[in-house]
């Protein structure tokens, strides 16, 4: 194996500067708005004061940064004043995410994020390398884990997508499907919320030349009568129509934003198997390509929201070691496929194909081979009882408030609350219990739950860390318990193996089995 140190690409300083400057953009915008009315503000000077040191530091960092491939570890050296030498054993590297935005592509380079188990942040960020260097990096680090002798594998020919033999495409998501994904996802709302927050912060409303009333009057002058009626009339009908109309337009807009976002973000999503590992690649502007070593997958979840089910689609994501910790690094989150702790395996898939797809991707897991077992038959009674008590208290409070401040007869209207809520809860609980099931096969534990939105999670026995059998006072009253499984790299959010409302004896059986199975398998990072 070659041991001489390698440098970053000679244009790295450009990207290093850009990445440091990213942190300066918000303060600069703030300064800009804060002093917009100040005639003495010299933005070019201000910018230079910030940018020049950044540029110089980037140039120095590029000269100093190097990495080399030692016998069984990657050695990364960096640091201007404080020298840092990091030794990353190849076997600990579980992913090398490659990120390319249009600027990267313009210069034929990419950023490589070296991710290891355990920490949420990438162990090292190589900003930037050219494509042959990245191919070499992937071969020598991730390739070293396989049986394949890395020595005969160094056939770097420059093209990023070229990978060695044994590559099978498992999934390609066409554009039409991505549009459906945009329709399903609520990403639009998040983007809109972020945008609205930014605009209110920047107080653009107050910017000169924008007077809402003036606009409205100008608008009315050149509009047909019905619009004037809608806007001016104080009739209840027009108010309601206007309200509903605005909401509908807003919702449609959100979905459009969402569709657009997904089309750009997941453009050309492909999942391929490459020497036993999985590789995803997607993105129109910023191309993200990420390798998921199969044995590092800790948990797989399929998601079916109500929209998924209307369109007969499903989404599958997974957790790997180290790929957790939200809010770590922007680029890392990009690499994981968005602002979440999980990696996408299939952003969208025909619902009927899910089991077959999963079998093909991860042959050990078979959703169709599971013998699903129900939760306790007394679970619904407990849910109803709890909700009845909660709703009862709420109703009582509401009634007291109403009769004190209005009239005791008005207070009777508070009875609408339980009359509406309790049947809904009954439907919900019944539906949830009808779907929620657990199952054990000879190599994994399965749990599915949900009513309108549904999810199925799987954890292979060799990824089970600790098993927890727990019982609340209410559980104990009813001789019930729940069983939860802890895995490595579990994010804060998301569906996991945490099975509630089990009869005590059933819970103990599951718990014993999981403890025994976990104890008899080895966990490998």
């Amino acid at each position, binding site marked *: 194996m070659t041991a001489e140190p390698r440098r970053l690409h000679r244009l790295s300083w450009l990207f290093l500067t850009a990445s440091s400057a990213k942190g300066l953009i918000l303060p600069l915008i703030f300064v800009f708005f804060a002093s917009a009315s100040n005639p003495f503000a010299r933005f070019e000077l201000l910018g230079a004061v910030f940018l020049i040191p950044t540029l110089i530091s980037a140039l120095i960092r590029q000269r100093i940064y190097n990495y080399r491939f030692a016998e069984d570890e990657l050695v990364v050296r960096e640091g201007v004043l404080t020298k840092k030498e990091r030794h990353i054993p190849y076997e600990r590297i579980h992913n090398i995410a490659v990120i390319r935005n249009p600027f990267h592509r313009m210069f034929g380079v990419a950023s490589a994020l070296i991710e290891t188990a355990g920490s949420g942040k990438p162990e090292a960020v190589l900003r930037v390398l050219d494509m042959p260097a990245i191919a070499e990096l992937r071969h020598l680090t991730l390739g070293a884990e396989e049986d394949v002798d890395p020595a005969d594998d160094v056939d770097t020919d420059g093209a990023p997508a070229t990978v060695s033999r044994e590559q099978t495409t498992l999934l390609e998501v066409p554009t039409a499907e991505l549009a459906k994904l945009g329709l399903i996802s609520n990403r639009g709302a998040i983007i809109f919320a972020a945008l609205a927050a930014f605009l209110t912060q920047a107080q653009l409303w107050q910017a000169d030349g924008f007077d809402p009333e003036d606009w409205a009057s100008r608008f009315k002058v050149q509009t047909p009568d019905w619009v004037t009626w809608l806007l001016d009339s104080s009739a209840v009908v027009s108010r309601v129509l206007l309200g509903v109309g605005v909401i509908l337009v807003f919702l449609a807009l959100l979905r459009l934003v969402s569709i657009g976002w997904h089309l750009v973000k997941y453009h050309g999503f492909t999942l391929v198997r490459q020497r036993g590992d999985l590789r995803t690649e997607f993105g129109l502007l910023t191309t993200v390509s990420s390798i998921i070593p199969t044995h590092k997958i800790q948990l797989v979840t399929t998601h079916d929201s109500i929209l998924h089910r209307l369109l007969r689609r499903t989404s599958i994501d997974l957790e790997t070691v180290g790929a957790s910790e939200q809010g770590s690094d922007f680029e890392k989150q990009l690499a994981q496929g968005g602002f979440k702790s999980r990696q996408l395996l299939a952003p969208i898939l025909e619902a009927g194909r899910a089991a077959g797809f999963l079998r093909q991707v991860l042959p050990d897991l078979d959703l169709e081979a599971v013998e699903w077992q129900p939760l306790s038959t007394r679970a619904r009674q407990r849910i109803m009882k709890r909700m009845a008590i909660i709703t009862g208290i709420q109703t009582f409070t509401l009634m007291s408030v109403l009769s004190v401040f209005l009239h005791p007869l008005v207070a009777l209207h508070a009875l609408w609350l339980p009359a509406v809520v309790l049947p809904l809860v009954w439907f919900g609980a019944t539906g949830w219990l009808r779907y929620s099931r657990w199952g054990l096969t000879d190599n994994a534990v399965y749990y599915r739950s949900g009513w309108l939105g549904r999810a199925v999670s799987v954890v292979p026995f060799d990824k089970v*860390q*600790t*098993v*927890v059998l727990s*019982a609340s006072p209410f559980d*104990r009253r009813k001789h019930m318990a729940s069983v939860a499984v802890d895995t490595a790299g579990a994010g804060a959010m998301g569906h996991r193996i945490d099975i509630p409302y089990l009869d005590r004896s059933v819970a103990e059986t599951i718990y*014993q089995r999981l*403890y025994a199975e976990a104890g008899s398998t*080895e*966990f490998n990072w």
Partner: protein
Amino acid sequence: MDDQEPDSNVEEPTAEPVEVEAEVAETEVQEPETESIELADGKEHEVDPAAIQLKRLVGGILVISVGTVVLLVLTLVWALDGMPGWLYRTLLVAWGTPVVGFGYFAWQWPVIHHRHLRYRVDRGGVRIRRGVLWRKIISIPTTRVQHTDVSQGPLQRNLGLATLTVHTAGTEGASISLTGLNHQVALQLRDHLLPAHGDDG
């Protein structure tokens, strides 16, 4: 069997009926491996009763110090003519009640807590049962133990106690602590839980 019971000044009747319904009917584990110590007997053990004293000590110090501070502030305000005498006397009573209450709690709670804290070691790993109202049994298979720590605070050292912390690769259960163990037992447990397959963990 290594849990000795010094039973020095634990007034609590130790023969309290342990809730049987919470008992986990665990399948008895096969006989321990040859090099396994008698610790791995697959039976439930209590932690060292000296842990009760430690908890009482800590709780008592907390109650006394907080109580003293409140009392001092009250007296100071009264002495500086900040409040009338009758209010001061009322507040003194109002102060005494929670202090006595918390004091009693600080005295009794460690016993209850102790009664509900058990551990069980077998060839496959260790299981910790804890919680008075919300109860749970956390099981850690030996194969999932990354490393273990035995730590001792100054007070623990005086009483010969220690805390065993087991680290796994998990997230919520990334580190699981068992406090109140006899130091010797903690060391034995640590040795038992050391990854048997070498030192790669």
